[in-house]
């Protein structure tokens, strides 16, 4: 019954985002979207209304930044006198000279931009590696727990036992030492001959995250009712197929939010990559600081960027959680 309003809110949000090319109209549209959303709180029981509202907020931010940019910097043929004087006054402030010194002179903003790219790159591949490792380790550990009775000794059991022990050591070592130390060991000791810092960072953070992901997934597997496993086995599915068709799909659903949170944690953790000289976002800000000897602007800028990223992804996770809860009925 609220579907119509919810759809409306969603569409307004999308339009507001597109209209960022005409920031004035875009802002108006975004504000309109927020008002509609605020006046139809009921519609927000539908996820799509929340998505629309979120898009409106994002559009609003983008549009406001665009407007500020247009007012202060855009060169047009007949800039009105009042605007010129406004600009002169702004250019004369300490804020602007700091801003210019830190970000515009020598194109210093590129340290931030490139750093952000590196941060995303490292995080993305580290997450993939972490999930792959985590799934494998979780499966080995939980399969040993359930299969140790069923395997009648012999070769298979010995192999599984060795793998189980290796996974145990992996979890203990990785979770028992700081990630910076792991990063430095991989860079300075294991990969001493290579200079591929991105690869080193991906490995370090992926291996580190894998240990936490493994425990998240194992928790998910254990949270699935034992009767599900027995039902699968009693139909005639073997261990692997029972896991694949029945247990993992249910476990995955319960751990998805926790996995997404692990990703958010990882984005922030990559900020220590500067220890091995990788120029990611934090290091980028720090380089600016070392060139300009002013710490405030670059570091606050870096902090704001992390904050926006984390808020954005946390929002996505909350939508995901709601989505999963809805499908449970």
């Amino acid at each position, binding site marked *: 019954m609220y579907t119509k309003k919810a759809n409306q809110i969603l569409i307004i949000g999308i339009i507001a985002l597109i209209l960022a090319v005409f920031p004035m109209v875009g802002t108006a549209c975004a504000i309109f979207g927020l008002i509609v959303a605020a006046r139809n709180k009921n519609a927000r029981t539908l996820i799509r209304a929340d998505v629309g509202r979120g898009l409106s907020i994002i559009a609003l931010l983008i549009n406001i930044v665009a407007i500020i940019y247009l007012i202060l910097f855009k060169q047009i043929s007949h800039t009105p006198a009042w605007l010129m004087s406004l600009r002169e006054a702004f250019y004369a402030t300490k804020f602007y000279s700091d801003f210019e010194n830190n970000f515009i002179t020598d194109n210093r903003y590129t340290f931030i931009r490139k750093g952000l790219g590196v941060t995303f790159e490292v995080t993305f591949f580290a997450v993939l590696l972490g999930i792959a490792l985590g799934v494998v380790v979780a499966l080995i550990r939980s399969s040993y727990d359930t299969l140790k009775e069923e395997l009648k000794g012999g070769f298979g059991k010995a192999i599984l036992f060795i793998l189980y022990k290796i996974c145990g050591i992996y979890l203990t070592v990785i979770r028992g030492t700081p990630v910076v130390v792991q990063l430095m060991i991989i860079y300075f000791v294991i990969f001493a001959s290579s200079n591929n810092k991105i690869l080193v960072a991906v490995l370090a953070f992926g291996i580190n995250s894998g240990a936490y992901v493994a425990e998240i997934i194992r928790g998910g597997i254990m949270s699935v009712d034992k009767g599900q496993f027995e039902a699968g086995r009693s139909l005639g599915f*073997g261990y692997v197929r029972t896991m694949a*068709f029945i247990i993992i799909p*249910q476990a995955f659903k319960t751990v998805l939010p926790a996995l997404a949170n692990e990703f958010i944690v990882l984005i922030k953790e990559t900020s220590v990559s500067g220890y091995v000289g990788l120029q990611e976002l934090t290091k980028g800000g720090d380089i600016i600081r070392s060139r300009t000897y002013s710490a405030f602007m670059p570091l606050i800028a870096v902090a704001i960027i992390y904050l926006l990223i984390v808020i954005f992804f946390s929002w996505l996770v909350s939508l995901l959680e709601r989505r999963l809860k809805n499908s449970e009925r």
Partner: protein
Amino acid sequence: MSADNNVIISVNDLKKYYNGGEVKALDGITTDIKKGEVVVVIGPSGSGKSTFLRSLNLLERPTGGTITFEGKDIMSSSTDINKLRQQMGMVFQHFNLFPHLTILKNMTIAPMKLHGLSKEAAEKKALDLLRRVGLQDRAGAYPAQLSGGQKQRIAIVRALAMDPDVMLFDEPTSALDPEMVGEVLDVMKKLAEEGMTMVCVTHEMGFAREVATRVIFMDCGKIIEENTPDQIFTNPQNERLKSFLQKVL
């Protein structure tokens, strides 16, 4: 051990110990289950009924003794237990339907993946079975949308979709509200009439009396008495059986 080729399951001196022999859940069970028999297992709580039933398809690993199913030793390492389990349907007290799959998928996943049935063939078969238990209109629903009685009827036909030779039931009506017990027992009764070989652990004495061909009374991990329902209920021999019947009837 039996040369009788009507015997489907042959159990010999079956033992299951927990905590290194401290708990003797099964303490030497010997019995044969023949084709077409409906064996009802009764006994007080903790007497080992579930353990016995779950040993038959190796959900529990026995400590000692032998079980042969259709002539094969199920505990031998050369036996493919997954193959054997496909011929033994099992119904649980708590249904254990797969909550992430629709009713139709619950019923087609095993025939498709294990018997290699095409999607169409598996769905046709599932719908036929659903019709038999009057639930054909719930094919697209998820388990959470069904009542307990409906869930258990689905669990029964899910097992039947694999064309098993034997059906094992572990207290299939114990988790149900009283008004739903009847609909599940009716399905089981129909199944028995069609000649299915069944082993049921149940507290429904009416069902045992009416449908069973043989009743086994267990206590402390042992078979204390086994006989036709008529003899068990009207002419019990053992004192423990007598006092058990006094409590439940």
